[in-house]
């Protein structure tokens, strides 16, 4: 202990250092990330090449196909951006929940239910056109939101973990969609009198005027405005979280509920609200998928494989939010990467490579990108914990 403490506090020996350390560490975070990413990509490429060699395919052709299929042409880019829009809407919503400390992993189900309610509303509306599209999109968001009401209620009234409830409700949602498109009195398509085939597990097609407007279209492709909606929403959520008092309180609640209580933040309102809002985003993505791409609700068993309407867009949005460390603005480039990979591996299957191998190649690249990011996050956490320990001795 020293007397100079009041002027230049003694305990500064540690904090002064740790401040400098933190700056240096943040630097090396970026450097380390670059190195890890390069290594991981190399490793992924090596593994993928080995796998492809075993499967008698030329790695060069395969990687060309991935690049071409995602970025190489106008149709490829349109596919990439259409995929990106869905992933990004889900991811932006997921950021809201995770920032509030709520682990929503029910995006697949929320997206499916959003598609279901959007379809029901679209087919029930007496008119079509731009206003109908707006109503359909809102109906999707409302459907997703409803799907998170029970988890929010159970979490804050009964203490049931939202991880479990949101996850399990995914399976309920798949069944609900499947049921709806298999019941003629619900949403199953009408059968024409002269039809020789049985009706499929899908809804009627939406009126053409209910299609999401195109930004650009050409032979074999159609880029819808979803990407604009997604980017605007991601930026808006980013603004909300970083720059508003609501976002501030949300972050305080997510980081430290005890401190939030002292700010009069009501856990049920803030946490439940964040969970429901994130689900609304997933539901909106369902409506975008419906009006932008499929134009009808599909689901249930087809050719023995269980296909859900959400088609993994929910999971990919969740992963994007995680990789982007819950920052919706970072989610824009990450979402684009995931959209491109999805489009690329779709094109890969078209080259005759088995879908299984294509999926493995896609997974390898994703792991190569995500693992370094997660390692960095973990490293940062560990430093935080160490800093805490230092203080507590």
């Amino acid at each position, binding site marked *: *202990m020293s007397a100079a403490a009041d002027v230049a506090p003694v305990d500064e020996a540690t904090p002064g250092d740790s401040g400098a350390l933190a700056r240096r560490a943040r630097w090396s975070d970026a450097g380390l990330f670059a190195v890890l990413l390069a290594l991981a990509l190399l490793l992924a490429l090596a593994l993928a090449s080995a796998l492809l060699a075993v499967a008698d395919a030329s790695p060069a052709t395969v990687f060309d196909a991935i690049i071409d299929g995602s970025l190489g042409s106008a149709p490829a880019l349109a596919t990439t951006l259409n995929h990106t829009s869905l992933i990004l809407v889900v991811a932006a919503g997921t950021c809201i929940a995770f920032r509030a400390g709520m682990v929503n992993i029910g995006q697949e189900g929320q997206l499916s239910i959003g598609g279901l309610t959007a379809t029901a509303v679209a087919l029930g509306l007496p008119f079509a056109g731009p206003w109908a599209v707006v109503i359909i999109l809102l109906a999707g968001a409302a459907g997703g939101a409803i799907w998170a009401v029970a988890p929010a209620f159970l979490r804050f009234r009964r203490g049931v973990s939202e991880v479990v409830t949101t996850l399990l409700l995914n399976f309920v949602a798949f069944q609900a969609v499947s049921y709806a498109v298999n019941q003629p009195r619900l949403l199953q398509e009408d059968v024409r009198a002269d039809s020789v085939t049985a009706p499929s597990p899908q809804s009627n097609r939406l009126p053409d005027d209910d299609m999401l407007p195109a930004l650009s279209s050409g032979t074999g492709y159609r880029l819808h405005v979803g990407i604009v909606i997604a980017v605007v929403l991601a930026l808006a959520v980013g603004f909300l979280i970083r720059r508003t008092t609501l976002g501030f309180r949300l972050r305080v609640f997510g980081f430290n509920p005890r401190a939030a209580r002292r700010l009069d933040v009501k856990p049920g309102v803030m946490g439940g609200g964040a969970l429901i809002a994130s689900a609304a985003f997933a539901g909106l993505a369902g409506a975008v998928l419906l009006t932008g791409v499929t134009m009808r609700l599909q689901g249930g068993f087809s050719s023995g494989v269980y296909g859900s309407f959400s088609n993994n867009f929910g999971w990919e949005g969740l992963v994007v939010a995680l990789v982007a460390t819950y920052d919706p603005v970072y989610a824009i480039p990450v979402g684009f990467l995931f959209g491109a990979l999805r489009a690329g591996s779709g094109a890969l299957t078209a080259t005759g490579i088995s879908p299984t191998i294509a999926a493995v190649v896609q997974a390898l690249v994703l792991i190569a990108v995500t693992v370094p990011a997660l390692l960095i996050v973990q490293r940062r956490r560990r430093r*935080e914990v160490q800093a*805490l320990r230092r203080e507590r001795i």
Partner: protein
Amino acid sequence: MLEIAGVTKRFGRILACDDVTLDVAAGEIRGLLGQNGAGKSTLMRVVGGVLRPERGTVKVDAEELPVGDPIKANAAGVGIVHQHFSLVEAHTVWENVTLGDEGALDRQAAIARVDELGERYGLAVDPRAVIHDLSPGERQRVEILKCLRREPKVIILDEPTSVLTRQEGQRLFGVLTALVRDTGRAVVLISHRLEEIMATTDRVTVLRDGRVVATHRTGDTTAEELAAEMLGRRLSLVDDRAAVGVSADELADLDVGRTASSVGREPVLELDGVTVTAADGHRLLDSLSLALRPGEIVGLAGVEGNGQQALVDLLSNVLTLDAGEVRVLGRRVAIGRRGALRDLAVIPADRQRSGVVLQMTVAENLVLNQLGSVSRHGVLRRQRIAVRARGLVEEYRISTAGVDAPVWTLSGGNQQRVVLARELSRGTPVLVVAQPTQGLDVGAMESVWTRLREAADRGVAVLVISSDVDEILDLSDRVAVIFGGRILGEMERSAVDTDRLGLLMGGVAS
């Protein structure tokens, strides 16, 4: 039976046990008395093998224990009943009692054993009951059974009655006394309750600042003597400052007398018969009454765990009242309603957990509860936040890499300053500070104290809640003592008599 010789244990700069020597005979109940941080628990954790001392030995039955090995210590006959329960809440009593056993579980045998032990020692608990459903008293019994099952030669009880009702406490001591007399075991009872020590122990040892200051036959001493020894006539703060080289002139500046005239008449914060009950029915605050006038510093002394935390939580608007009322500036406030206590600035003791958000930046933490003044239409004005933060960082000498650095990168002392700067700069008429200098070094302590005095000089009513008596005596105009959730005594600073203060803190209301 238990021989502790020359045990020294330090934590960083703090000497928790300084060459402690202590012998406890078979058949004896030894009291171990001392303030928070006097080294009682550290010493017992050394005996239990949980901590490894720098020097010294522990012998049980003349056999030296290997240091830092809780399992061997246990096997050698040391049993500890911890202050905080270490029970698995979702499991049954018998499962908890047999926890740590190896090999196949014999449910019937375990249940029979619990029943038998319970009967033998008068500690009956239903072995099949789930811990979750038990009262604190019953849980305490399970802890003791857990300890007794291994037939320990030395039993250490760390503040066993802190969660018990009076009756439960008395019954426990009845059992304990019989147990020792009949079986020739040695018991060490750690407590800050003088009454308990006087009534139960054969001999009593007082620890202060990690050293043994006295050992008495309990029959030959008095509560007054023990209280005085526990508090000690410690180094006055002047000596402390001199020891670290602050000159006498600077001291004169610091100790500018605050005149009584600066203290207003009308109380700004009044607590009237305030009662708060925990979920398990335990009274956290028991018709507590206290008033604060503008410009005065009231020190609330007391051993930790006597309701201080509940009081801070209540004043932070996170608890609900069961009875009584709180008045701020003469108006009754509805505790629990949003913004009900906005005229109070509260600095909780657990600053890292509820005073700051470690992952957020220094600037964000500095405006944490004042968002209204740094935003417009719900949008934060970053320029304003940065300017305010830079001003406070400079004014309060917060050492940080920048206002955008996360708070976790700051030292404990600087995190403390962040909270202090934020709360003091709010300009509220009432300031409540719990353990204002816990974990700070002398220099940082001094600057915190100066800030509090300045606030009082500006007319703020300051409530300082501290378990450090010296701090209370140094800061306060008036001293109140909290014990068992109520104010046991109140006196002007000038009328404080340390003996009486010690007795009050030990729960003896003269």
